[in-house]
């Protein structure tokens, strides 16, 4: 892993060998960041074999008229067909000053000649193989905590692994969350707390508490849901469902049967009772107001606003306030 790559020392040729996507992405990002540190305007070409012809490769690896620097990242280099692979093999023998070339290779037998040629030409090698043993994954978890300047106990790391599974991205996400939510050394109890929260939090709980007017609980659930990585749009859509249910029972279309009502509210028939309980204390005007809040929040969450978490908090507060509206 590159940790302290100084910008002046970015190797002109790097090969990243391995099939662990998270590690590969991080290694690529670090090379790019190191080049950007000296040259914020640098052009980055991140290419897949399906997108490149030999011609395109020649183009991106040729000297620029204006001496512009470029980073060329070539993913899945083992999948290159013969002709473009030839372009790269020739290039590594006689590289261009302005170009930083990063080859990502899965590490298998396929496309090995290309990898060998790059290494022979003095490429900087970074290994990113998938960890296969539990001990390697534990080491990864410890590494994640080290990077943040934090510590995790051995039994906590094991508990985390047991709970999250073997996907490195998910392990990394859980580590990030634990680091953000806790202080000091992380022990097994902290990991257990984290997982209880994750299991309980859902957009629907947030929405139910909000339409019932239970502000404090709704906000607490909302923060949990966001903390464990629930997508804000899922929370808006849960709010929309809850408010839709209210609308249907607070003031129903005339002459609808129970099953038609349930269909309109998009709930199973037995849930109408819950909806009717939730609808106590709501007026049509209040519900219409809540519908407006949901629409506005969806816009904010989809990118019109800078802070989805804040938009959702405000939505919960405004929905609870709309409940009191006469």
């Amino acid at each position: 892993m590159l940790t302290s790559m100084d910008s002046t020392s970015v190797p002109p040729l790097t090969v990243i060998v391995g099939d662990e996507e998270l590690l590969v992405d991080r290694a690529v990002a670090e090379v790019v960041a190191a080049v950007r540190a000296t040259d914020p305007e640098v052009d980055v070409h991140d290419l897949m074999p399906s997108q490149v012809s030999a011609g395109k490769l020649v183009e991106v690896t040729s000297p620029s008229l204006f001496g512009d620097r470029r980073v060329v990242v070539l993913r899945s280099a083992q999948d290159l067909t013969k002709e473009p692979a030839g372009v790269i093999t020739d290039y590594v023998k006689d590289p261009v000053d302005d170009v930083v070339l990063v080859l990502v290779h899965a590490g298998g037998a396929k496309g090995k000649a290309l990898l060998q040629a790059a290494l022979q030409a003095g490429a900087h090698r970074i290994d990113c193989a998938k960890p296969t043993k539990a001990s390697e994954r534990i080491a990864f978890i410890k590494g994640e905590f080290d990077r943040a300047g934090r510590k995790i106990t051995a039994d906590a790391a094991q508990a985390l692994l047991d709970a999250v599974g073997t996907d490195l991205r998910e392990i990394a996400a859980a580590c990030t969350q634990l680091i953000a939510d806790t202080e000091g050394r992380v022990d097994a109890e902290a990991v257990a707390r984290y997982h209880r929260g994750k299991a309980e939090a859902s957009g629907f709980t947030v929405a139910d508490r909000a339409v019932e007017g239970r502000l404090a609980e709704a906000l607490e659930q909302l923060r949990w849901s966001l903390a464990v990585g629930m997508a804000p749009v899922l929370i808006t859509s849960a709010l929309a469902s809850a408010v839709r249910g209210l609308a249907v029972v607070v003031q129903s279309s005339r002459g609808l049967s129970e099953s038609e009502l349930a269909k309109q509210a998009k709930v199973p028939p037995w849930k109408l009772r819950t909806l009717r309980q939730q609808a106590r204390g709501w007026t049509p005007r209040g519900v219409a107001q809540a519908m407006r809040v949901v629409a506005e929040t969806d816009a904010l969450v989809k990118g019109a606003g800078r802070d989805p978490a804040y938009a959702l908090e405000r939505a919960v507060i405004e929905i609870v306030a709309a409940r009191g509206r006469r």
Partner: protein
Amino acid sequence: MSVFDTLVGQDTVVQRLRAAVRAADNLLSGGDGTGMTHAWLFTGPPGAGRAQAARAFAAALQCTHGGCGECASCHQVLAGTHPDVLYVRPSGLSFGVEQTRELVVRAASSPTGGRFRVVLFEDADRATEAASNALLKAIEEPAPRTVWLLCTPTAHDLLVTIRSRCRLVNLRTPSTEAIIDALVTRDGIDRDRAVAAARAAAGHLERARQLATDETARARREEVLTIPARLDSLGACVHAAARLYEIAEADAKESTAALDEQEKADLKAAFGEGATGKGVAKAVRGAAGALKELEERQKRRATRIKRDAYDTFLMDLVAFYRDVLAIQLGASVELSTADRDADLRRVARSSTPEATLRRIDAIMECRRRINANVHPQIAMEAMTAALYLG
């Protein structure tokens, strides 16, 4: 016959464009070409035909007879296949800088046919900021024979620096009479139907043609216009929003499904699906990437088609409330939803002009939200509730 015949109710614009075509001919024959310029901006309300006007102008520039509408060159331009006309119609909701740079390079090469290189850029307002800057550079330093034709709803939709370098062609909303006349004489539609369609389309030529010729479109409009009278409870609001959502999705699916399948089949054929032997596995891997790209593009197109469908519904609703307002204010104007007379009068009697304006605002707000990527059903629920409560 002339390529300008397709423009309806735009006499002043046609005169100016014809004069420019004469100047362009003068330029080609070694004159100074006064009156011709290399960058044009076509603006006008939806349906006024800005893209058609730009296309007709492109055809006239390429034609050796000033846009006869009959020669091979005219046919090619109108059909979108002329080698010296670059057609840009962003299929997504925005047009990026990479695509623009590529376009600028292609625009700069010399015309193969010896006349002009014309770039016809519809919906130029979809160019991102970076893309607009790339475009500006090309327009500031034009290649000698390149002509840029940009189309946007209003001049304000473009960077002021681009706008100031373009000659403005502003199309106006054609009159109902002009539209009726076009439908009857050019499309051979019978007069009664043409009158009804032209009124309903309120100055939108293509929409009028669609209403006159497409039964589904007429049925959709009728259904949409029954909504105001049916909003008698919040439940009905939820129902109406769900129904609009359902029909827009279904219509969009119908108009894209066949096209999507065909494109996929073509792509697979190009990658030799079904073949066997050496090299097939490799080809299949390459195909997977290309297929993913195609699917992305199709998804963007579907989004755009859906938004157009919602737009049509919402504009029909706006037309209804605009008519309500006209009745409330006693204005003697032609009502575009006169076929819903009883509903119009009932809504007009039971509400105030202020409430009508608030309702129109709610519809425009819904449109803005759908364009900002809000889930259409959510946006329309907020709208129907606002229409119901006034």
